[in-house]
Each structure stands twice: as structure tokens, then as C-alpha cells.
């Protein structure tokens, strides 16, 4: 598929998702996955800042521990923190070990097989609310076209957060950010339960939550909250790895 058609497809899917009662984390997960297809990168993720607090992981293209750990470290140091604080993009930053700039982040990213990292700030009305992060595991540079597409997707991510229940004032923006981060915690709690109850990996647990929500037109966070509250049994969630028997 050509780059153009991949981008168009990504935009169409995102637009489909941005209907009235959408789930922020679901939309940002779709966005991260689409980034990996449309841009020449191997992993993508979104980090958001709690107002006045640390940067936190919110959604990624892959739910594997590999990528999540890298996001976790970035609550303290790494390209996302720098990009967030400066409001400037970091493009084609080649990872080195040892690294004085990011002594914890860089060696871990290299050990996970990544070669370079890129980060774009998510900005709104002069305020940076988070950052979009990309990893590449082979040498080579992101082209200008890639950066334009990536920035466009970063802007959509920003809109997805802000448009959620129509954010018009400061109170609501802070509320959206707090609520998005809290939703992520609800999902992690539910993933742990599903993983234990059905003996599956965390990424499969996430896929089950997501499929279950999508098949029933429910919001991802809503299903996760029901799992934690014991209102939905882990065993009863849809299983995307299992084909329905005819």
C-alpha cells in the first residue's frame, strides 16, 4: 500500500473513532498503531502530563513490557521528558550507550533492540500537554515527509484528548488529562486480573478487553472498570486469539 493510502486509511479510522462517546485510550491506541504503519518506525506511543505533575504513559502500538518499560522510565528521563519540557521535536536521535543525557533510558532502549528515537510534543493553545514517541530498530533516518505525517498524527492525538466531551475551559482540560491517566490505571488493573484469571500475557489481556468493548459498542475503560468491579467475569470476555468454532 502507498504511503498516501496508509495515511488516508489512518485518518478514516481515527475519524470513525472520534464519535460522541469515544474512549480516549482506545483512540490513542489506534493512533499509535497507525503511526507504525504510516511512518517508518517500529514502535509508537503517547505520553501525557498530569497537570503540574510527571509525564505518564497512556497508549502505545504494542502492549508488550518491552515498550512499556521505556515509557515508564521516561516519567523521569528521556526524549519525551526533554521534548515535553522544551516544546521542541527531537528527530532522528541515534541512541548511544553509555549516554550522559539519558543514562537509564538509552542503554535499556538499545538492549531492547532500538536504534533511534524520535519525539514530538503535543501542543495546545501554547501549552504542551504530552508527547508522541517513536522508536526505530534499524539504522536510517526519518524523512521530512515522515515528520509531517507524524506531526499531523500528534495533532490528532491532541484533538482526541481535548474534544473528548468538549473541552472549553481550563477546568475541563485538567479533568480530561486526569481522567485519561486514571483510565489507563483502570485498564492496567483489569489486564492484571484477566492475565491471572485466564493465564494469558498482558497484551492478550488488553486485546480481550478491547475486542469485548468493540464487539459490544462499549467504551474500553467502561469494560475495564466492570472487570475490576467484578461485574464482568474475566472468563466471559471475547478472546481474539480463539477462532469461533463453526
Amino acid at each position, binding site marked *: 500500500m502507498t504511503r498516501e493510502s496508509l495515511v488516508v486509511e489512518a485518518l478514516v479510522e481515527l475519524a470513525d473513532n472520534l464519535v460522541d462517546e469515544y474512549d480516549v485510550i482506545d483512540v490513542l491506541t489506534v493512533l499509535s498503531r497507525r503511526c507504525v504503519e504510516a511512518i517508518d518506525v517500529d514502535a509508537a506511543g503517547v505520553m501525557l*502530563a*498530569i*497537570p*503540574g*505533575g*510527571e*509525564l*505518564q*504513559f497512556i497508549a502505545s502500538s504494542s502492549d508488550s*513490557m518491552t515498550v*512499556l518499560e521505556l515509557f*515508564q522510565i521516561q*516519567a523521569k528521563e528521556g526524549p519525551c521528558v526533554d521534548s*515535553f*519540557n522544551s516544546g521542541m521535536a527531537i528527530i532522528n536521535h541515534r541512541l548511544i550507550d553509555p549516554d550522559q543525557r539519558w543514562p537509564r533510558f538509552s542503554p535499556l532502549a538499545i538492549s531492547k533492540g532500538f536504534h533511534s528515537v524520535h519525539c514530538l510534543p503535543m501542543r495546545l493553545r501554547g501549552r504542551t500537554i504530552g508527547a508522541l514517541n517513536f522508536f526505530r530498530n534499524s539504522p536510517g533516518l526519518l524523512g521530512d515527509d515522515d515528520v509531517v505525517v507524524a506531526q499531523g498524527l500528534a495533532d490528532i492525538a491532541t484533538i482526541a484528548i481535548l474534544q473528548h466531551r468538549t473541552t472549553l475551559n*481550563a*477546568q475541563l482540560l*485538567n*479533568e480530561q488529562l*486526569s*481522567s485519561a*491517566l*486514571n483510565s*489507563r*490505571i*483502570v485498564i*492496567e*488493573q*483489569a*489486564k*492484571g*486480573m*484477566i*492475565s*491471572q*484469571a485466564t493465564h494469558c500475557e*498482558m497484551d492478550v489481556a488488553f486485546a480481550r478487553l478491547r475486542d469485548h468493548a468493540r464487539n459490544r459498542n462499549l467504551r474500553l475503560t467502561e469494560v*475495564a*472498570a466492570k472487570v*475490576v*468491579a467484578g461485574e464482568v467475569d*474475566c472468563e466471559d470476555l471475547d478472546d481474539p486469539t480463539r477462532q469461533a468454532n463453526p
Partner: protein
Amino acid sequence: MSTDRLLAIYELIALREREGTGPGLLCTVAAQITRMDGAGVEISSIDNSMTGLCSSSPTSVALMDFEKIAGEGPSKSANVSEVAIDGSDLTMELPPWPVYTPMALSVGVRAVFGFPIRLGAVRLGALSLFRREVGGLSEDQYSDGYLVASVIGRSLLAMESGARSGELSEELQRHSTLDFAVHQAAGMISVQGAMSVKDALVALRSHAFARSTGIADVAVQVISRRSRYVRNQGFVYDANY
């Protein structure tokens, strides 16, 4: 720097701890950081009933009593709705809480605000703030309200797990409860031990205290299945598990 306010909260908690401010510490810090006249923290039970935990002033105590008597108010609203509650003008013609409002006005309070305290799907309670003049919160005050509510959430968990008093600020800075591994592990433990996720978080925290290690370290052991929770036994370490 984006984490300025968080550090400011930690510093205030550390300062108050050194001064030996008693159980009202968290509320004193909350009122100070948000520049309000007072604050109160209430804990919620499974049925969403609220119990006062701490307060920064006699007026805060009175406000919490009024909420109990009236069965309504900013804490209760914040806890149930899980969003910040704005009661910036109690003198308006149709106030938000018809029974609570006249009581609050009688002790000189003109504006009240409520912030939910939660950790993922776990509702811990609410923080309420008041002031003696009518007026809304600025953007910064809202940010600070959310931030201090999240710090209080982590403090509640630490206190319930047996954190020594006077060591709260150190404890808070050592780990982030937003760490996804902690919440995944809490989910796993809740299934292993047939308990609520909240109790699982407390169990994780307590175990970390007992072993003098971080909650994230215990969480990683659980996720990698080197450790699991057994009912009536606690955490069991098994190389072959």
C-alpha cells in the same frame, strides 16, 4: 519544569512532618498548595458512604459534619461523579446542595470544591476545599487540586499499609503509584487472593514495607511470576512457579 508543583507538594509535606503536624497534615498541605481557607479528606466505603479522615481547621470539621447530616455536599458529589465539583458561589439563588448550603453559609463559608481521590477503578474518597469568599478556582488551582488529590491517594494507601508517620514525604518520592506494573500486579493479586484491587494494592504496599523494598520491585516479581499471593499465607516466592 513540569514537575515543579509535585515537588512543591512533597516539600510541604516534608516540612509539616518535621514540624510534627499531626493527622491533619495532608489537609493542611492541600489547603496551602491550593491557597484555600481550609481542606478536609473523607474516605469512602463500598456503599459510597463517607467517613472523615482529616481536616485542616475547625470549620473543615464542621463542613464534614454538615455533609454527613445533609447527606450531600462537595465530597459526596466528587466521590460519586469521579470529577471535580465546583461550588464557587454558595450565595446564589439556587445553590447546588439545598440542605448542605445553608449550613455551610452559617459558618461563614462562601465557596466549596470537591476533588475525587482514586487509584484507577478504586475509589478512595474525596478532598474538599473551602473559602470564605465567593469565587471560582483558577486553572493553576484546579491543577493543584487534582495533583494534591492524587498525592493524598498514594498517602492513604501508604498509611493503610503501615507507613510510619513522619516518613510520608520520603515514601511518596520513592515510587510512583502510577507505575503500570503496580496496577497490573494488583489486578493479578486480587485474583490470586480473591480480594478487591484496593486490598491487593494495600497487600503489595505492606509487603514492600516488610521487605524494605519498593512497591514496583514487588510488582515486577508478581508479573514475572516469581512471586504470588496465597490466601492466609501472603506472598510466596517460588523459583519453579
